[in-house]
Structure formats: C-alpha cells, structure tokens
C-alpha cells in the first residue's frame, strides 16, 4: 500500500494528473446529470485524487465570490469539496495536489492513525521552529501529498485544511467524508435501527463567507481574520434559494450540490424507513439549524453512534440541531401525517392563511394554496407558483436571523425546504 502511494505521488508530480485518472468514478452516471440527494464520489480502491484550486461561486444577490476549495482532480472547481463516501474499516487514500499560491493540506478530524506520505500525520515547523501547518502539506503551486488512513466508525466527518487554518477555512477548503458501515450501505452506523430509505440521504455542509476576506485574498492583499464578519451563509456552498436547485444545476457550475430534502409521508407498509441528513459545520460559529414541522432523531455525533457501553440506544429527538463549529451530527428524519386533514371528512378548523404569508423569495411561492396534501389551488396571477401537485414544503434554516439572509436581505442564506409529496407520489396538476 505504501509503495503504491509513493508511486502515485511520483506519477502525479511527473505527469501532472494524467497518470491517476482511472481511479475516481462518480456514483452518478454523468457529472452533468441533475439529481437530488447526496452526491458521492466513490472508488473501489477508496482512492481519491483531489486538487486544491481557486474558482468562483455565485450568490443569489448576484455577487461573485473568489474561493479556494478542493475538487476532484478530474473535474473543475467546486464548493464544497467532493463528498467522499467510503466503507468503515477499509483503507482510504487521498492524494492532494495543490495549485494554490500557498501550501495547503488536509486534516481528517475524527480519523485515527492518519499518515502523510507514509509517515504519521503531524505538525510541521519551519527551520526557525515556528509552526507552519498542523499536518504535512502540499507545497504551493504544484505540490502534492498523499494521506492514508483506515476509515473510522460509520458516520459523517469533515475533511479540511490544516494549513494557514484561519484564512484557508474561511476561503473554502473543506468537504464531507461519509463513512458507511461495512456491508450496510443503507445504514448510518452499525445499528440496524439506523437504516434509511434508499436514495434518501442528504448532506448539509454548513459554512459561511466574509466577502471582504475573499476579495483581499484575490487581490493578494493582507488578511486580518480577527476583523472578519461573514455575510453569506450556505448549505453545500449555496444560499437560499439556490439551495433548492438540483445537483449539478448548470447555472451553478461551481456549486454542484443541492439541499432539497424530498420525501413522502411515513407509512408502515409503503414507506417505513426515514431519510438521513448529515449535518457538518465547516464554519466558525454554531448554526442553530432547524426544520419547521417535525423533530429529527440525532443518532451520531462526530461519527460516533449515540449508544451506551452495552449498546443502549441513546439517540434523541431534537428540533434545533445546533451543530457546533467542526462538529457533525447524523440524523434520521421522516414526516408523519398526524392530523390526516381531509377537505370533506376532517376539514382544517381554521381559515387558510393568505398567500402573502407564504412568499419566500420575491414573488415566488411554493405553497399549494391549500392545507390538504395533494390538493393544489390557483394562486393570484402576479405570483410564481412553484408547487407541483399539492405537495407540502417545510422551511429548514438557521434560526440566527442574519444567517438566513444574503448579505442582510431576507430570505436567503442558510435556508432550504423539505418537500413532502402525497403518499401516492406527485402527479403534476
């Protein structure tokens, strides 16, 4: 394994990326295919080639932000870094190639025994004894480093820069690592009660941007992160309403990951399994993230199942997820039709609120103009109706109000919706 790793580095250095192209295969058939849910980079050998590079993201208010991020060496810039999905207990290799103007690296918080170029991952010092990096780095401009470790306990983890940390984290050098239980790809952890519905897996990587820092880095000006104030707050590198757009939306070329949860009501027979959401905080403050509508069951913290020494289930229902900086939470969520509202047999005993209360973004509404799941009524002609078939939408967002804005303008920022289709599915009306 070590020899292979060294060879890879040499190949990378000598042949500039070309030598390692066959390894990374996308789960999706095409990188350009639009889709919903977690989009994994996987590989049979669990070997990933990442390139730290610069690029731009767009924000819903029309801004364009200069970023640094990890991308697959086979693809262009993206924010956040690729979601790497691996199996617990098996070796993982991550080759980092650096095109940035300063050294960068990757630390894997929560993973044990990480090696860099075959040596234990450890802090780096310059000749004067000053700390330069928390881990061996890839030198500026054209450097490489190879990290190896055995994937730890099942759950989600951040991977992120360990070099020039205060600046590089703000600049966007982070991504999600999802470790799956061996032999149980549809479970969050080793517990059978962590099973989730096929295809109903979501990654919510939460982060923030101070555009002034990014502009300074782009212009090669000094950066003082202690005076930083973030203005954009994002899920998977996007802000509301871009969070609702599908994966690989062509109008967001550097921001391939959507954040729309799309499920049907729980049903013991036809839809018994919940969805799972991996919450990862790559930012610098806690994000009090909560969905409107129903609690979620927290089953993992920092990649460890919430269970007692003899396997007691210590998971808990939570409304506000409040994931802290650098932390991860894995949750199970479903939506249960508790009230069973029905226009004839069980009418809602109140007046339906005016449509003006349901506008989220400009003149756009997702409200069906009906409280009954599966019923869609007409809306005033001056509104843009995004509802398809009477499905429900529940807002989910950071409750810190400035984090639910785009540079102060509501609504926006760290916000998305959970879509609940009628039990029989969605037939457009």
């Amino acid at each position: 394994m070590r020899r292979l790793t060294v060879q890879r580095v040499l190949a990378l250095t000598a042949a500039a990326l070309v030598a390692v192209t066959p390894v990374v295969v996308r789960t999706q058939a095409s990188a350009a295919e639009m889709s919903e849910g977690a989009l994994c980079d996987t590989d049979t050998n669990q070997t990933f080639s990442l390139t730290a590079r610069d690029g731009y993201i767009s924000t819903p208010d029309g801004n364009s932000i200069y970023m640094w991020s990890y991308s697959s060496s086979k693809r262009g810039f993206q924010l956040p870094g690729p979601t790497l999905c691996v199996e617990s207990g098996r070796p993982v290799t991550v080759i980092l190639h650096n095109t940035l103007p300063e050294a960068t690296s990757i630390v894997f918080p929560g993973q044990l025994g990480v090696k860099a170029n075959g040596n234990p991952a450890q802090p780096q010092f310059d000749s004067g004894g000053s700390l330069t990096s928390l881990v061996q780095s890839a030198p500026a401009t054209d450097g490489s480093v190879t990290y190896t470790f055995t994937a730890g306990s099942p759950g989600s983890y951040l991977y992120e820069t360990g070099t020039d940390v205060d600046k590089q984290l703000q600049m966007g050098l982070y991504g999600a690592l999802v470790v799956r239980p061996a032999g149980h790809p549809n479970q969050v952890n080793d517990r059978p009660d962590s099973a989730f519905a096929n295809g109903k897996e979501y990654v919510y990587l939460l982060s923030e941007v101070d555009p002034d820092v990014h502009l300074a880095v782009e212009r090669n000006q000094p950066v003082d992160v202690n005076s930083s104030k973030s203005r954009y707050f994002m899920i998977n590198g996007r802000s509301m309403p871009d969070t609702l757009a599908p994966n690989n939306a062509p109008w967001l070329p550097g921001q391939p990951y959507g954040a729309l949860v799309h499920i049907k009501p729980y049903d013991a027979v036809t839809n018994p399994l919940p969805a799972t959401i991996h919450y990862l905080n790559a930012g610098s403050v806690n994000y009090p993230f909560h969905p409107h509508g129903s609690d979620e069951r927290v089953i993992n913290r920092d990649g460890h199942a919430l269970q007692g020494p003899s396997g007691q289930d210590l998971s808990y229902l939570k409304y506000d997820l409040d994931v802290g900086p650098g932390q991860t939470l894995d949750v199970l969520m479903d939506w249960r039709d508790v009230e069973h509202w029905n226009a004839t047999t069980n009418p809602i005993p109140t007046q339906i609120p005016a449509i003006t209360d349901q506008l989220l973004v400009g003149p756009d509404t997702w409200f069906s103009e009906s409280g009954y799941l599966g019923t869609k009524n007409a809306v005033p002609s001056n509104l843009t109706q995004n509802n398809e078939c009477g499905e429900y939408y529940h807002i989910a967002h950071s409750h810190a109000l400035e984090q639910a804005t785009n540079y102060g303008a509501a609504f926006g920022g760290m916000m998305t919706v959970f879509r609940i289709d009628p039990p029989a599915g969605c037939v457009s009306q």
Partner: protein
Amino acid sequence: MRTSVHRGAQALLVLALAVFGLTSSASAATVAIELCAVPGTAPLPGGGLVPIWGFGTPTTPGDCSTASAGLPGPQLTATAGDVVTITVRNALPAGHTVSFEIPGVAFNPGPTDAASGAAVSRTFTAQPGTYLYQSGGDAGRQEAMGLSGALLVRTTTPNQAYASATTAYDVESVLVLTAIDPAFNAAPETYDLHNYRATYWLINGRSYPDVPAITAATGQRVLLRYLNAGYDNTSMTLLGAHEQVVARDAGVLTNQISASTETIPAGATEDAIVVVPTGTPPSTHGFALFNRQLHVTSGPQTGTSPIGNGMLVFIHS
C-alpha cells in the same frame, strides 16, 4: 477514610472538630484560601503588555500589595467534603465592587460583595468537579479584565475526577480558555461593550507555543478540564484522537459523548477524557487540540501564513 455521603452532617462534624482542634488528614479538612483582586499586566502573544485585573495570592496574608494579578487567577484545589472558605480582598481601583461567585457552588449564607478596599469571605462544602471562580462585578467588565480562575475539587479516590470509575485518569490538564480585546482592557471603565471584539485567544493565559504541552504516553488517560472564561462558546477540535465528554458544569453525564470537536459554552466547564491512541506512536508533537473557530492566531494578522499564536496546544509523549 473520607466519605462522600451525608455532607451536611460531615460539615457540621468538621466544624466541631475544627473548633476543638481535632481535625486530621484522615477526614475532610477545613481549607482557607485568600485571594486579592488587583490590577496588573499580562503579556500578549506577539509582544507587549496588556492591563488586566486579576486574582492573586498575597505572599503576606492580608496585604494585597504582595499579590500580583494572574491571567487566569491562581488554580485553587480542594478535596470533596472539605469546608472551604475563600476570602477575597478588593484592591481594584476605587469605585469597583468585587462580587465573588463560583457558578455551581452553593455558598453558606453571608455577604456576597467586597467594596473597594474591603474583603468578603465565602464558605462552602466542596463537591467534586471543575469550577470557574470569578467576579461578576461591573456587569461582566471584571471578568473580561481577567478576574477568573479554576477551582478543582478532587475526589478522595486518587486520579478519579468523579464518583464514577469511568472518570479515572492518569494525567490531568487544566485548560482555562480566555480571550482579550486589548482596546477594552485599555479602558475598562468607559469602553463601549457593543464594540467588544476579542482578538487574542489564550489557554491558561498563554498562546501557542508558550502553552506547555500536555504530556502523556500511549494508552494513558488524559483528563481535560476545560473552563471557558471567555465570552464566546468555544469549539475545540482534537486531531488524531477521540475525547469522551464525561461531565459538564461539574455534573457527571449519565450518557457520555464521544467527540472530536467539543463546544464549551461561555462560562461553562467540561471534563473530557482522551485515551492516547495506541498503534500509531505519537510524534514528537503529537495530537493538536485547537480552537476550531478561526482563532489559532492572535492579534493583527497580515502575514501570508499566520498560524500558531492562538488557542492551540499539543498532547504528546
């Protein structure tokens, strides 16, 4: 043999014994601690001194001119069951009342404040745990100036933080997390707190590399006693190892939590145990424990790769 039950009765017994001079090392002791709240200075990472108000221990009892302000204050220790009396003398500049408090500790009834030039004594029976002592005077300005420190109450079982055997440890490390806004410290009486913005990030009053490393061998259990004396919830990431959170605010958790990044709320304490991983020998510099909120650097930053003079420490052998 000390006992942890019937503390009230035990305290009465101890008091009675104390009156008759019959206390011995075999039973809970009476502990007298004297502190002075005094102005002073503290070194800043990168050079220079910042004015502080801090607690210090007078070398001559009752004479605060022989005490120097510490950031944080002196580490106080007691053993579970001890009857502890802390006398605080107020030698702050005129006009500032010291209001001594230890969140989580129930003091015996008595005065709470020490006026300028005066003293106040607070007595309590010690319960195991990690506590932050502080002065709540001037609506928080005194804590921001540095008037806080760690109180450790150890159990009668050596190397065990709480009654639960799961809290046994080999190595103890106390981490008082503080932050400084030098502009506030320069004008503590008049500074507009809306503008308070800490720019220096310290562990036990120091920043990396001046924070002594935590030394422990492979397989040893390291007890991290976190105390957040700052004003922000603080998330600390541990690389290459896990920590088991065993207590919060001196209360043992029924359900312990395995974490690699733990958030210590402002004003709170937490106890976590790290088992130094086997398999990979720790390097000479070992496992990084650092502030995950972009505070591994302190002060104005204009360098190309600023790292390392903030809230960062290593665990190594």
